[in-house]
């Protein structure tokens, strides 16, 4: 069986990955970066990934893990590695005030892992077992993260309704 070209796959799967990335990230530029980094990794492993039964599912897991990894790295670097003269506010190439949906605001209040669980469970419709595999944690952790995330989203939604 010949390997399908990476480019064909990426053009087909890219929009779906970007949609997931958009739900995982607060900023469009971060979502673009996340997709870009993931595509590079997929390209480098394409001969293996293309032979998988479900490459799209595998890459979704890569995307989620890449996101968690980038968040860890950003958090670490922003804590202790500012250099003199660096801008206090990081520019994301977006206007300073961005109109966001209530859902985006609510998602922004979740931790990175909770958010990933919510997106994989309720947007990608993955089972707890698949999410646990993707994120490298136990199903119990997935369930507890999902439960906490839902509780938090409900609190946020209730607060918004109250005005």
């Amino acid at each position: 069986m010949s390997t399908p070209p990476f480019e064909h796959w990426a053009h087909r799967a890219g929009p779906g990955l970007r949609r997931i990335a958009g739900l995982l990230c607060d900023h469009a530029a971060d979502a673009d970066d996340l997709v870009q980094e993931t595509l590079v990794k997929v390209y480098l492993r394409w001969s293996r990934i293309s032979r998988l039964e479900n490459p799209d599912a595998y890459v979704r897991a890569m995307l989620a893990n890449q996101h968690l990894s980038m968040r860890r790295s950003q958090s670490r670097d922003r804590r202790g590695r500012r250099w003199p003269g660096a801008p206090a506010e990081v520019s994301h190439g977006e206007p300073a005030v961005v109109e966001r949906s209530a859902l985006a605001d609510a998602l922004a209040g979740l931790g990175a892992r909770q958010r990933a669980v919510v997106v994989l469970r309720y947007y990608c419709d993955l089972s707890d077992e698949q999410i646990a595999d993707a994120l490298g944690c136990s199903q119990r952790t997935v369930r507890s993260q999902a439960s906490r995330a839902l509780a938090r989203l409900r609190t946020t939604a209730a607060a918004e309704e109250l005005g």
Partner: protein
Amino acid sequence: MDEQALREALRSEAAEQPFDPGAVGRAVERGRAHRRRRRTALVAAVPVVALAAGGMTAALSGGRLGAETGEAPVARGVGSSLPRPLPLLTQRAQPEAMMLANASGTVTVAENGCLSLFTGSGFMPVAWAAGSTAVTGDDGRIVLYDAGGRRQAAEGDEVQFAGGYQALTSLSGELVGAVECALGETSVFLAQGPVEVLRAAQTAG
């Protein structure tokens, strides 16, 4: 918010996320660059392995080969003195317009193995000038070379150069090399002038 409502809200939110098809081409380009760097490192390693194997054969055969050819010590320590390419973030091309902010500090290898500038209070992520390379020198220090192969500075040197920092998001396709060298920051300092050594590091011996 019940689970079904959440599903619908997520679908609605996701539908508004645009995909840039150019990301595919950039991924291919960066992937190829990554493979080129890896190949270069492997090609550099092959003669060492061969030489080391040759040296070992000579030793096993009584050590006379080296004495006869005058090349006996060839395998000794050759691995440690081999120029080893270092992950480096560089600009794809020379800038059309120069930025003139001054950066100064000590050329240092950051925790992630990338050549950076230590300013005294932190690492400044640098995208070095187009074509720059960094390898381990004979004394074990990392040496930075420009596109023409001219030595610019070495690890431990206090240097200054012109340039300016810019958001990574505005540099799409303009940087090549190891993106991890951006140290997780969202902007990097683009080194655009020659690297001037203010004080060379003291070397042992």
